């Protein structure tokens, strides 16, 4: 697999192979794709972001991250397929052209590389980071309970041994802090999309409280349109709504932080997985999952592009 044209996107790969393929995409589409390192994980693995841009200075941007819960492998696989799709569709798909002529796009393909490697080598069901907690035999923090949004509130555990442990303080995890620092230093991010996989949901804030956000009507409308676009391909059914009512109350989540930071278009996807397969979605469903997700993503992109704020 020496180039993105021969890479098998329909298979699960170890971290090194994913990082190599990111380099291949950059090499193949150097005019619009570049790679940035936004930090290092707890175990010193690089955190790489693919930047899709046609130029301009500090254009409004869309942020996408995938795989913050390491074991949800189809998210990292979907993100990689999406990277190739955006790069290869530029100049061919008017929607992608129009987007990239207006905005930049940042894609963090593996948001939790330590957890991802651990899920390949030690424990297939690992979801947390790999940071050590002083005084506890248990390792890791749930990185989607670690953001500065209702930190430590309902739906997060204070027990370091729990799979939803919120960590010692907001942004304590370097993987989270690196994204926060990047978004803050960029200063012009208009959409923040986090990709997970379990039970087919498309959600918007809030999770830490069941109060409605100011923009609920608009975000609900955007999400429903996106979910319909996604469903149109294979009929996969998605539930849409605020995290709190669609799934459960959970504090310290990324899209609550991004919304409160002023990024109106904040969404979280839970990709195709009924639970019958757990997080072990069969490899032959990777590309269908990526394809349908692309329909939903594109629908959100178009709305963000056409509704500057």
């Amino acid at each position, binding site marked *: 697999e020496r180039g993105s044209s021969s890479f*098998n996107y*329909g*298979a*699960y790969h170890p971290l090194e192979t994913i990082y190599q393929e990111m380099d291949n995409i950059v090499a193949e589409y150097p005019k619009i794709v570049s790679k940035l390192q936004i930090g290092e994980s707890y175990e010193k693995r690089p955190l790489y972001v693919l930047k899709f841009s046609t130029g301009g200075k500090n254009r409004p941007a869309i942020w996408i991250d995938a795989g913050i819960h390491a074991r949800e492998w189809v998210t990292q696989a979907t993100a990689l397929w999406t990277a190739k799709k955006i790069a290869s569709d530029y100049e061919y798909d008017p929607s992608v052209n129009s987007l990239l002529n207006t905005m930049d796009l940042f894609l963090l393909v593996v948001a939790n590389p330590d957890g991802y490697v651990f899920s390949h*080598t*030690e*424990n*297939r*069901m690992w979801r947390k980071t790999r940071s050590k907690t002083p005084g506890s035999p248990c390792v890791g923090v749930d990185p989607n309970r670690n953001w500065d949004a209702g930190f430590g509130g309902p*739906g997060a*555990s204070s*027990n370091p*041994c*729990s*799979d*939803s442990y919120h960590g010692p303080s907001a942004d304590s995890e370097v993987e989270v802090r690196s994204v926060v620092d990047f978004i803050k230093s960029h200063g012009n991010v208009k959409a923040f999309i986090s990709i997970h996989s*379990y*039970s087919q949901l498309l959600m918007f804030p809030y999770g830490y409280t069941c109060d409605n956000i100011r923009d609920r009507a608009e975000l609900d409308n955007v999400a429903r349109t996106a979910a319909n676009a996604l469903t149109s391909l294979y009929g996969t059914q998605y539930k849409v709504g605020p995290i709190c009512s669609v*799934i*459960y*109350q*959970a504090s310290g989540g990324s899209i609550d932080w991004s919304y409160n930071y002023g990024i109106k278009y904040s969404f979280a996807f839970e990709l195709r997985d009924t*639970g*019958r*397969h*757990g*997080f*072990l979605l*069969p*490899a032959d469903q990777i590309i269908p999952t990526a394809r349908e997700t692309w329909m939903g993503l594109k629908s959100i992109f178009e709305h963000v592009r056409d509704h500057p704020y």
Partner: protein
Amino acid sequence: LENFAGDQVLRVEPCNEEQVRLLKELRALEPLQLDFWRFPSYPNEPADVQVPFACLQDVKVFLESRGIKYCVMIEDIQAAVDEERREMYLNQRR
């Protein structure tokens, strides 16, 4: 490598607030080492929980004695992991 032989995933369906509360209590019991894939939230919303083989009986007794409905969603996680590993091996060879 952690072995998940005999671990099951149960889909639990609480039908009222009291059952949701009981599931949240179950979640807090550290010795059981339960991994909730979908956390308990509202009545009639399912919760999915991975239960280590060693605790299966305890958890099932807990649920049954309190009248909480559940079904086995994944019979044996290790079998699923093995299948995935086989697929990855075949892909690498291809």
